[in-house]
């Protein structure tokens, strides 16, 4: 049990470190447009030097590296604040699906440009009526000659407004049970009839979009998997989503600790107050527990194992912790804690901003309740919830509308 690399891993880490030190751009505060530009530039630089999409085969722009090596590079890269977000979904979720279901030509056409950052992909799965019931999607696809015609609406699509392509699940047959009537495609986001509208969140930010489809045509050649097999194809995509979801991020112990050192309660530093100390200790233990759970996952990766649904605990524990820390710190500061004027507020308003962002963390990518269901069913092997819609044609399932 140690934190050290094997000699091979150490060598690889050294090389990664050296290259990053020489090439990583210094962190800047980007405007929204600059951010995308900078992200593409950095991705291209990695690609050209052989540090992009490390686990992919060389022919598709990768390096054929091991999972452990990929993790090491990610770890080292994370030490810099680099603009990598726009590629997460395309490289992490669309690409594995393409590798499994696309034709060789398609792979050669799309994967290298995904790796180089030239083209960005988004994921079009969620729908307003779906929510946790992902497969209850209603966006229709109807075959018309060599094409399919798509009508409907997707929601929670990150990056839709700057994406070049998207992966899309549709309902091709509403007369069969929920999971059986789905068909999976990819399409150009520039297709006529695709309309992207940003969603404003509580926090005021707009990280997600609604995407409307009006008579959008997709060539049948861009179908992934058989007609009616869309759910099976989706599982490939979703399996990779879980691996991509971290547990860190958000407001943490360090911020609360620093505040407690600085503020006073009853004329003494807040950190001397045992109620504050116990609260802080609780969060420290959670963060430490998550950190070393990730280290255990890392070890499993090193041994060539695939991390399973037990990773759901990161998001489950982390999101509520962020909400609690934000709430606690605001109360520690008192009335000034809810101030959101950048210039006047403690930490530039980070605390209320985090509190407003936290509900999204507890919901996006699967609610707390869904995370618990995943752990209960897939880790502990407990029975699934009773499914009253099982075996019922989709268009006969009660919807409340």
């Amino acid at each position, binding site marked *: 049990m140690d934190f050290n690399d094997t000699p091979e891993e150490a060598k690889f880490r050294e090389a990664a470190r050296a290259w990053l030190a020489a090439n990583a751009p210094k962190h800047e505060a980007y405007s929204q447009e600059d951010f995308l530009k900078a992200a593409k530039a950095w991705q291209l630089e990695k690609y050209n030097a052989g540090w992009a999409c490390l686990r992919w085969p060389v022919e598709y722009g990768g390096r054929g590296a091991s999972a452990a090596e990929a993790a090491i590079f990610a770890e080292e890269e994370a030490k810099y604040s680099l603009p990598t977000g726009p590629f997460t979904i395309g490289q992490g979720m669309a690409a594995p699906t393409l590798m499994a279901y696309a034709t060789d030509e398609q792979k050669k056409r799309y994967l290298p440009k995904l790796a180089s950052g030239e083209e960005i992909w988004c994921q079009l799965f969620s729908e307003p009526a779906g929510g946790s019931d992902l497969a209850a999607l209603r966006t229709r696809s109807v075959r018309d000659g060599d094409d399919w015609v798509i009508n409907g609406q997707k929601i929670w699509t990150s990056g839709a407004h700057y994406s070049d392509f998207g992966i899309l699940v549709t309902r091709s047959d509403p007369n069969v049970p929920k999971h059986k009537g789905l068909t999976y495609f990819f399409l150009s986001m520039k297709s006529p009839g695709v309309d992207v509208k940003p969603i404003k969140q*509580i926090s005021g930010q707009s990280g997600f979009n609604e995407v409307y489809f009006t008579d959008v045509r997709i060539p049948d050649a861009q179908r992934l998997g058989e007609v009616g097999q869309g759910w099976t194809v989706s599982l490939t995509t979703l399996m990779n989503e879980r691996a991509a979801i971290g547990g860190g991020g958000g407001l943490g112990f360090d911020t609360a600790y620093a505040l407690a050192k600085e503020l006073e309660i009853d004329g003494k530093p807040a950190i001397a107050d045992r109620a504050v100390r116990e609260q802080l200790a609780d969060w420290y233990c959670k963060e430490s527990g998550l950190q070393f759970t990730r280290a255990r996952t890392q070890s499993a990766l090193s041994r060539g194992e695939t991390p399973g649904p037990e990773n759901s605990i990161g998001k489950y524990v982390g999101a509520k912790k962020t909400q609690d820390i934000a709430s606690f710190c605001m*109360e520690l500061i008192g009335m000034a804690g809810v101030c959101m004027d950048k210039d006047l507020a403690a930490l530039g308003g980070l605390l209320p901003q985090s509190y*407003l962002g936290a509900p999204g963390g507890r919901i996006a990518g699967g*609610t707390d309740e869904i995370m*618990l269901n995943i752990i209960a069913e897939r880790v502990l092997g407990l029975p699934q919830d009773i499914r009253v819609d099982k075996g019922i044609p989709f268009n006969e399932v*009660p919807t409340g509308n």
Partner: protein
Amino acid sequence: MNFEFSEEQNMLRDQAVSFLKDKSPLSVARKILEGNEPYDKALWKDITDLGWTATTIPEKYNGLGLSHLELCVLAEELGRALTPVPFSSSLYLATEAILAFGTDAQKEAWLGKLAQGQVIGTAAVAEGPGEFSPTKVGASVKANRLSGTKIMVPDGDIADFAVVVAGGDAGLSLFLVDLNQPGVTRTSVATIDPSRSHANLAFKDAEAEPLGKAGEGASLLSQLFDRAAVLFAFEQVGGAEAAMNQAREYALGRYAFGRPIAGFQAIKHKLARMYVAIQLARSNCYYGAWALSSGAPELPVAAATARVSASQAYRECAEENIQVHGGMGFTWEFDCHLFYRRAKLLAVNLGGESTWKNRLISSIESDRAA
């Protein structure tokens, strides 16, 4: 034993409910939240016309001379509707302070105007981050002139006068300060809940008039906060219940896996826990209302109890209401965040849960030592 509101008080509630349903749907709170107005002026005028601002003011000052129980009823309904008006500042803080500590002359000067909504009052306490400490007040009054700064004053940008905590010749004291004078500079401040306005106030040789016994500022403030805590707790319970009802409605109407999500135990039990938190808070609030209206010596304990459990209930209901809504819950478009913001604002406005828990134990200690 009669531990419920009276029939007359419930009639007042019915009137309030139907007035607010008509005039203060959530879209009104949202309008203030999204716009540049500090409060809804037309609605405020309606409310003063109804006489709500006159509730506890004695008849000789043109008030209605009702008890605090009636005010608690209104507080709950205003909290439920998130009504964006300076009711709490002007009534729970300013009016209460003058009623409790004012001289006849001060009552004469202010109460009539407060009753009729001709003036808006508030209280200015905090000066910086951290729990309020009477030993760390920088604002001071010399020869009836106040200098110093106060931050995050509720309705500080619109109030006509404020009860200000400041050092005086005899030590910490309360003062009445006209905010429409040259020595006062107001700076509006954005908060987590823009449906209620706040401002920082800078005083430079502003005229100030003592309120209550000089040198007793800490004790007077504590008494004032006990009174305000009960009233705010009713606002909090009203808000918590509205948030729970919103969650309940959504859960009943939203289907997943072929049935309403309200039928899944995770959601059922979440809603049941919200209900439990609200019931505990409501019962403690009733105790607080009784203590406040009857002038009982139990007020400090009752107020702290009501305050703590109402803050807890509102937090849980506001947070979990969003959770029940899933993705829709954290969109700007849905109203869940209105409660989420207000819950947090109200939770810190008189000092946080930790502060009140400590006040509670301190009060129990002195009761039991006596």
